[in-house]
């Protein structure tokens, strides 16, 4: 079925503050072919099915040339894809190798043991807000917190942030489906340049770690051998770049969306103050209600697939609209209500299946600690403007700034 330019409306910046009515429109037909080419899947069970469907590839080299060109998703000839854009077995091998220094089974306590360290970072950032009557949550807190964390985990100097910030933003913006052919071409070139520069920067760091090892992931990836052997030098670079970007471009939105949602729901904010344990299910609900990743625009089909009566042909570009799926009334009762202790919340906020978010445990912990501390310590917080100004990006969606008026900071 060919349809309306819904994708265009979804990516239209004017709709960034509230894309959810558009998703509702989209869900009337679980699979829609957008006039720009890709097939959009917007309902919960269909998305979940496709996330577990071995006929779906994350490797854009499987797109037909036409679909690749139309989506501006051509393969970068200079640098191979990171594991997020690979299929098994390469994906599985690289993800296992990346997991070795990060989580179970090899390093089960890495994230768990960072609890205290994360609390200190949060506490330091909130201390810095003393004496202010207005703060920008994004620049003052939501951005610096996860950047500091991912830098420490990876072993990237925090001082270099001014360098990689721009590269990371450019690469993240490259996920965004944009308008004309010229714009797409410019975007592709920009992303390639940024990837190249980030890669050169990381290559230098990795070489340093190889010479003088430290207790960080870059060192581990560069020096350790496991049952899967070792990553190649270029694999270490693409993986480190992926983790560096994903480690903060998404969490910043989770925290900011969280505070925004709490300020819009003062009763919930008040509950969280007195009931810190609520942060745990609340963050899950946030991942359902205002997910930092709105859609997964990088899938393609290895075969003709029949979804709910629509045949998606082999090699087509597939957008899984996860933020829409998580608001599907066929799956969630009262999907447009923010219910902090919602039962049975199997949201799609971290994806599902093979490519489920690598950093999910860290993002959860960061968001739980951040929101708990913010509501406990910020006195009389209120939104200065609603909606706040958003970032351009429709895929990694979140406010660019979140000005909040406060009457003080509690110790």
């Amino acid at each position, binding site marked *: 079925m060919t349809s309306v330019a819904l994708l265009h409306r979804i990516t239209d910046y004017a709709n960034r503050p509230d894309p959810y009515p558009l998703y509702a429109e989209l869900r009337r037909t679980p699979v829609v072919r957008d006039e720009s080419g890709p097939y959009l899947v917007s309902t919960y069970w269909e998305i979940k099915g496709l996330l577990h469907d071995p006929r779906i590839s994350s490797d854009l080299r499987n797109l037909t040339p036409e679909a690749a060109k139309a989506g501006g998703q051509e393969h970068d000839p200079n640098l191979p894809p990171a594991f997020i854009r690979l299929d098994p077995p390469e994906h599985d091998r690289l993800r*296992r190798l990346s997991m070795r220094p990060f989580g179970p089974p090899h390093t089960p306590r890495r994230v768990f043991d960072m609890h205290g360290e994360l609390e200190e970072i949060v506490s330091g950032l909130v201390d810095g807000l003393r004496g202010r009557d207005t703060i920008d949550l994004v620049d003052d807190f939501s951005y610096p917190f996860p950047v500091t964390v991912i830098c420490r985990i990876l072993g990237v100097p925090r001082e270099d942030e001014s360098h990689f910030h721009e590269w990371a933003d450019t690469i993240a913006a490259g996920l965004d489906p944009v308008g004309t052919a010229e714009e797409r071409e410019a975007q592709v070139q920009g992303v390639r340049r940024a990837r190249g520069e980030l890669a050169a920067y990381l290559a230098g760091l990795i070489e340093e770690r190889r010479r003088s090892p430290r207790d960080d992931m870059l060192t581990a990836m560069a020096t350790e051998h496991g049952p899967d052997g070792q990553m190649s030098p270029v694999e270490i670079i693409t993986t480190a770049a992926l983790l560096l970007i994903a480690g903060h471009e998404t969490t910043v939105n989770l925290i900011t969306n969280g505070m925004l949602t709490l300020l819009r729901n003062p009763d919930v904010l008040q509950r969280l103050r007195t009931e810190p344990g609520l942060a745990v299910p609340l963050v899950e609900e946030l991942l359902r209600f205002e997910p930092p990743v709105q859609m997964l625009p990088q899938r393609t089909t290895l075969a003709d697939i029949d979804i709910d009566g629509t045949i998606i042909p082999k090699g087509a570009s597939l957008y899984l609209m996860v933020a829409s799926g998580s608001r599907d009334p066929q799956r969630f009762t009262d999907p447009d209500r923010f219910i902090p202790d919602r039962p049975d919340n199997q949201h799609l906020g971290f994806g599902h299946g093979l490519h489920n978010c690598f950093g999910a445990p860290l993002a959860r912990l960061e968001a739980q600690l951040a929101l708990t501390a913010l509501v406990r310590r910020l006195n009389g917080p209120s939104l200065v403007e609603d909606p706040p100004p958003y970032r351009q990006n429709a895929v990694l969606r979140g406010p660019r700034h979140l000005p909040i008026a406060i009457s003080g900071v509690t110790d």
Partner: protein
Amino acid sequence: MRLVVDLNRCQGYAQCAFLAPDVFTMHGDEALMYDPLADDAQRENVRKAADACPVKAITLDYEDLGAADGKAGASRVG
């Protein structure tokens, strides 16, 4: 505190092993082992793990839930 994991549901996302490593451990890349009678000091971590489980496979004893019905999550088939 008592808990039980439906290992038919479990797909090895390992979120529980990250969040409550003293109760849940991965045995290899995908197999989960856990202590069905976790120390009470682990209560907060276990609840975090149960909430984070992407397939809601972890059931806590109703006495630890503070609710009468700890029914497991909906599933598409039966």
